[in-house]
């Protein structure tokens, strides 16, 4: 495969006395020494890597590792202090302003952690933004924006405004905006980090589905190893502005470069990263304060389940109702689901490793309810999904 992006010894130093700091970086001085001597902060320290066409390249690191700075140097939102960034053989750091604008329009689009949708634009206008900037006429750009919205599963929201959409939907719009621009490279800066676990999983699956159709070159920033392992064709791990290791997920897992990476993947090895959030599925749900037995019954029929999870107006989980009991209620023409509520449903939080739940799951016939700290029902864990996940098929990791 051809190489799309090549980054050579790229360094970013924030502050004054850049020349001196640059020299110290080349002399392998530590970040702390350089800060003490010059007052300058080293954001990225001589990062080198290559990204192949059509792959998802995940840059992973904790906050302060320089990953966000690095991705912004790839589209020159932040100019590099030193080094080369080659795209199509062109060195980005040498381009003038006009050439850089032209390259951004043609080559790259970006998805942001907090979506960065324009609140004054409708959804369709947001998605068409990249094309509007390029000077495409209205009909043309809206047609393209429609295609992109359809691709991310957001048909029919054209004339809404971003604040009318949920976080997950807003990020779909962010993704659609990037896709609509028809650029080869997608820069995704912690794109799914602001989403709740279910939405994040859904968006990861969505991205993989879209990628299997479009084969873009995706540079994905993440602080979440599970996400990196799931999405990445290659993963690069950064710490304190330096590249620690670059490799395929298998390489990272089986041959960690140093203690730091090893500690990172420790959790992965022990439980194969599965937590309750990874294996939960969406249950049939009904709001007890809005609906009665008939609605509950219809929900169950639509979802092909024999039980339904009951929540209150605050979305809090309050219990479960069995289909037989509900039918009984309907027959007696009674309206209150509360009478047949089973309250002794086992619960867990989304971050609990599956290992800890295993013995209970195998003995309890009732699925586990996954609740967050506010007791909102996020999902349920059914036995089949857990077994499937452990056998390695179908589920997240």
């Amino acid at each position, binding site marked *: 495969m051809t190489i799309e992006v090549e980054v050579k010894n790229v360094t970013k130093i924030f502050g004054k006395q850049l020349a001196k700091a640059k020299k110290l970086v080349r002399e392998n001085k530590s970040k702390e020494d350089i800060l003490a001597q010059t007052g300058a902060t080293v954001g990225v320290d001589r990062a080198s890597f290559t990204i192949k066409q059509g792959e998802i390249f995940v840059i992973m690191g904790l906050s302060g590792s320089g990953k966000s700075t690095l991705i912004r140097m790839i589209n020159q*939102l932040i100019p590099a202090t030193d080094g080369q960034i080659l795209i199509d053989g062109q060195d980005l750091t040498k381009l003038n302003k006009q050439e850089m*604008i032209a390259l951004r329009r043609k080559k790259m689009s*970006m998805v942001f*952690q907090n979506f960065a949708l324009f609140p004054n634009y409708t959804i369709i206008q947001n998605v068409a933004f990249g094309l509007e900037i390029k000077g495409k006429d209205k009909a043309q750009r809206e047609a393209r924006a429609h295609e992109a919205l359809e691709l991310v599963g957001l048909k029919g929201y054209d004339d809404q405004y971003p604040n009318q959409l949920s976080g997950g939907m807003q990020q779909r719009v962010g993704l659609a905006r990037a896709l609509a621009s028809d650029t080869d490279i997608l820069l995704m800066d912690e794109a799914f980090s602001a989403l709740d676990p279910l939405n994040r999983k859904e968006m990861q699956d969505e991205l993989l589905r879209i990628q299997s159709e479009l084969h873009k070159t995706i540079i994905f920033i993440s602080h979440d190893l599970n996400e990196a392992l799931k999405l990445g064709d290659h993963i690069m791990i950064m710490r304190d502005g330096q590249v620690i290791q670059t490799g395929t997920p298998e390489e990272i897992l089986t041959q960690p470069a140093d203690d730091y990476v090893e500690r990172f993947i420790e959790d992965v090895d022990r439980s194969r990263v599965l937590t309750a959030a990874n294996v939960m599925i969406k249950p049939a749900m009904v709001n007890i304060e809005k609906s009665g037995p008939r609605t509950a019954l219809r929900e169950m029929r639509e979802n092909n389940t024999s039980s339904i999870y009951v929540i209150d107006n605050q979305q809090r989980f309050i219990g479960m109702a069995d289909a037989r009991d509900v039918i009984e209620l309907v027959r007696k023409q009674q309206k209150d689901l509360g009478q047949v509520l089973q309250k002794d449903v086992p619960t867990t939080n989304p971050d609990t490793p599956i290992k800890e739940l295993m013995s209970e799951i195998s003995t309890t016939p009732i699925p586990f309810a996954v609740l967050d700290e506010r007791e909102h029902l996020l999902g349920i864990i059914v036995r089949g999904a857990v077994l499937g996940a452990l056998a390695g098929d179908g589920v997240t990791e």
Partner: protein
Amino acid sequence: MDILIAKLPVADWINDFVKWLSGFTGFFNGVTNFIGAIANMFQWVFDLIPIWLFFVLILGLTFYVKRNDKKWGLLIFELLGLLFIWNMGYWRDMTQTLTLVLTSCLIVYVIGIPLGIWMAKTQWVNMVMQPVLDFMQTMPAFVYLIPAVAFFGIGTVPGVIASVIFAMPPTVRMTNLGIRQVPVDLIEAADSYGSTSWQKLFKVQLPLAQSTMMAGINQSLMLALSMVVIASMIGTLGLGTQVYFAVGRNDAGAGFTAGLSIVILAIILDRITQSLKK
């Protein structure tokens, strides 16, 4: 000590500077004619339209800007207020005051908004302009009248000039602030899709700065209105003149009614421009 014996000749310097500036008669005549033409145009329109049409225009405009929040108390206030001004015999004075305010504000916006944008985009302009704006805003407005008369004679034009200097800062500042307040990730989004500076300005920064800018625009309007009495001292006609005369005649009643008319006009202008924000 020497510093107590010899006063620094700052006043002399300024007088010399003003004298030197007065040499540019051609330039100042040009400005006077230009501003005079704008003011005359407004006044010509106000004199041309019959009073009932003026009522209809003001009420219609209010109805239009208030159509969404459906609060019609202002309409009644405007009707009664304007009838009061008419009844007191201050109609023409009111239109002259309106001419002063509108002419000043037009100039304030045409200069102030681009200046605010420039400040937001260029750091050194910001650093230079901040103290200048402080100076413009805090220098007692009377002081502007002195050179204004020297350069522009007496009448409406020097009143407009003094009002422009006094009323400009909020528009400049709020434009600057509004643009700087646009969230950084939206600026990054605009940049990352290859926006030019102009595209970024017109498609992202100005629309998102709009409500902050409107607050500045409203403030400038109010400040311009607050200059009407002061400007009357150099012969700018309007409601301020009536207040000024009343002071001279020690006529509390006339002073109060003219003052009340200014308040009514201020409330009408304020409420209409505030509604534009939303």
